[in-house]
C-alpha cells in the first residue's frame, strides 16, 4: 500500500506536510533535513527538485532554488543522496519540481528511480492532468507512484470533479491565487472557496498549500481540510537560522502550536462552515 494512503487512513486530520528545496541551504543537507523533519513530527515530506525558472514560485523558493543549483544540486545527485533514505524514515516522501528537468532526466527513468528510492508521489505543477493521462500515467502506474494534482480557487466544480476522479493519494488545494510564499492570511473569499470544496464530497482527502506560514494559518487549514503544506516559511527559517535538528524541531512545534495551545480560529471557522 502506498504510504500516502496509509497516512490518510490512519490520520483523519492535522496532517502536516513540509516542502524544502533539495540542496539548500547546503548541498548535502538533504537527508539530514528529512530525518529531522520526521523526528520533529512532520507527517509527509516534499523534496523540491530545484529549477532555474520556477514559474509558480515566489521569491523565497526562487532563491532557495537558485542557491541549490549554484551548490550543484541535480536530479541525479538527489537520487544518490536519497539512496538509503528508506532505512532512515517512514513518512511518505514526494518529489516536487518542474517538468523540464524531469523530461530531460527521462520520465520513465525518473519514475523507476522514485520507485527504487521509496518515493510515494510526485508533484509537477506544470504537467497538466490531460497531458499526464495521455503521455505519462503509464509510467507512474507501473512504478506505483501517485501524481498529485492541484486545484485552485478558480477551478470550477466540473474541473474539481474531474481532478478528484483522476487523483490518487490526495488533492493539493492551492489556498489562494498567488505564487508560493505570500503571507496574507485568509479572507472571506478563501472561506467561501474552502466551504465550496468541503461541500463537494470529494473522494480524495485534501491538503491546503500556499500561504500557510504559522500556527494560525495551519489551524485554519486543518479545520477545512485534512491538513496543510508548508514550504516558503520553512525555507525562510532554514535560510535565516540554518538546518540544525533543533531549529527544525522548534519550527515544527511552533506550527503545530506546541502541545496544548488552542487557537481561536477553528471555532470561528466551525461557525461559518
Amino acid at each position, binding site marked *: 500500500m502506498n504510504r500516502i494512503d496509509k497516512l490518510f487512513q490512519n490520520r483523519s486530520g492535522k496532517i502536516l506536510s513540509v516542502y524544502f528545496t533539495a540542496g539548500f541551504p547546503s548541498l548535502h543537507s538533504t537527508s539530514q533535513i528529512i530525518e529531522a523533519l520526521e523526528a520533529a513530527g512532520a507527517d509527509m515530506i516534499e523534496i523540491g527538485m530545484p529549477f532555474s525558472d520556477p514559474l*509558480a514560485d515566489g521569491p523565497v523558493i526562487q532563491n532557495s532554488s537558485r542557491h541549490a543549483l549554484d551548490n550543484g544540486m541535480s536530479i541525479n545527485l538527489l537520487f544518490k543522496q536519497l539512496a538509503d533514505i528508506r532505512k532512515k524514515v517512514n513518512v511518505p516522501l514526494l518529489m516536487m519540481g518542474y517538468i523540464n528537468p524531469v523530461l530531460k*532526466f527521462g520520465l520513465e527513468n525518473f519514475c523507476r528511480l522514485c520507485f527504487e528510492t521509496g518515493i510515494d508521489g510526485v508533484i509537477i*505543477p506544470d504537467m497538466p492532468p490531460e497531458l499526464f493521462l495521455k503521455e505519462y500515467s503509464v509510467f507512474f502506474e507501473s512504478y506505483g507512484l501517485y501524481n498529485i494534482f*492541484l486545484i485552485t480557487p*478558480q477551478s470550477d466544480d466540473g474541473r474539481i470533479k474531474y481532478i478528484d476522479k483522476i487523483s490518487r493519494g490526495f488533492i493539493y488545494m*492551492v489556498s489562494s491565487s*498567488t505564487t508560493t510564499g505570500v503571507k496574507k492570511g485568509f479572507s472571506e473569499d478563501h472561506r467561501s472557496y474552502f466551504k465550496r470544496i468541503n461541500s463537494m464530497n470529494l473522494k480524495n482527502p485534501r491538503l491546503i498549500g500556499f500561504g500557510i506560514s504559522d500556527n494560525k494559518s495551519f489551524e485554519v487549514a486543518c479545520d477545512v481540510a485534512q491538513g496543510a503544506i508548508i514550504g516558503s516559511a520553512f525555507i525562510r527559517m532554514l535560510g535565516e537560522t540554518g538546518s540544525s535538528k533543533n531549529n527544525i524541531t522548534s519550527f515544527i512545534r511552533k506550527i503545530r502550536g506546541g502541545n496544548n495551545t488552542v487557537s481561536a480560529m477553528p471555532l470561528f471557522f466551525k461557525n461559518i462552515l
Partner: protein
Amino acid sequence: MMKFNVDERGYYGEYGGAYIPEMMYPNVKELQDNYLKILDDEIFRKEFSLLLRDYAGRPSPLYYAGRLSAYHNTNIYLKREDLNHTGAHKINNTIGQILIAKRLGKTRIIAETGAGQHGVATATVCALMGLKCFVYMGKLDVERQAPNVLRMKMLGAEVIPVTSGNMTLKDAANEAIRDWISNPVDTHYIIGSVVGPHPYPDLVARLQSVISEEIKWQLTEHIGKENPDYIIACVGGGSNAAGSFYHYLDNEDVKLVAVEAAGKGINSGKSAATMVLGSPGVIHGSRTILMQNEDGQITEPYSVSAGLDYPGIGPLFAWLYKMKRVTFDNATDTEALEAAFLLTRLEGIIPALESAHALAILGKMKFKKDDIVVVTISGRGDKDMAAYMKYLGESDYKNI
C-alpha cells in the same frame, strides 16, 4: 496555411501544447476556447483591419532597396515593419490581442518585453482602449533600451524591472506569468511573440500573418508575381518571422530563412542561437527547442539585441526546423552592428538591432543576380542608438 497548422490540442507535430500550472488553467482555457471564434468574427475582423490601417499605418511598404541590392548583387525588397506606429511589427499583435481582451471582459493588461518594442506596443493599445497596463522588463533591458522605458511611462504603463535570472526577456516572461497566476480574473496577458502555452503561438502567428499577406500583393505590384525566392527574418521568439513566412509556408518554392542571434559567437558561451545550441524541452508553457544544460536547467542566453536575447523559440519554428521547411542561420553582435550601419549608409534606414541580424546574413548567402529576396525590417533603430554609437566609437565605421 494547412500543412504546418497547429492541431486541436495545440501541437505542431511534437512541439507546442500547454504545460501550465493549474493556476493558469482557467485563463488559458478561456483563450483556447474563444480565440478562433473571435478571430473569425466579422466585427472583430473589421475592427482589427481598420485599426491596422488607420492607427498602425498599414500596409507597411515593401521597398525595393536599390543600393543595397547593387551592393549584394541581387534584388532586395525590404518589408518595412519599422514604419508601423510605435516602430515595429509588435503593434500588429497588440492591436489584435487588446480587442480579444476587451471581448473577454478583461480590464487589466500585462506584458513582458525585451527590446521594449512589445512593451511600447502594449502600452500604446492600452492607452488607446483605456486599460491599465503593467509591463515586466528585465533590469538589464531597462538600462539598455532606455528610450522605450520612457515611452512606456509617458503612455501611462507601469514598467516593472525584473531582477531574477539574467534580468532579460526570459525573466520578464517568468514574472509576467507569475503576475497572471496572482491575478486570474481581470487580467489578460499579451504575450509578445509566438511563444507560450497554446493558443498563444497560433494566435500571435495569425495576428502577425498580415505581414506575408501584404508581401504577396505588394510583390505582385512590383514584379508581377507573389513569390520571392527568399524571405529572411530575424527570430527571437519568432513573431515577425512567423508573420513574414505565414502565407508562404505551404509554398515550397519560396525559401524561408530565420536568423538567430549568435551573440559573441556560437561557441563563446555568450549566444542566443537556440536552434544551434538547444534541445527539446519545455519553456514558458510550451514544448519546443531551448537552451538548457544536461540537467534541464535553462541556460542564460546572451545577445547585444535585447529582443533576440531569449533561450527558446516558438514551437512552430521547432517544427518548421524539424520538417526542414525553414533554414536557420545566425549572426553575431558584430555582424549585426556592421549590417545596421551598411543599411543606414546605403539606404538611409536605421534598423532595429534585431532586424540587423536578418540583414547580416545577406553577405554570407549565395544569391543569383535575378533572385528576389524579401528581408523583413522588423523595427526601427531609435531605441538602439546607444549601442550603435558605442560601436561607431569602437570601430570607426568607414565601410562605404
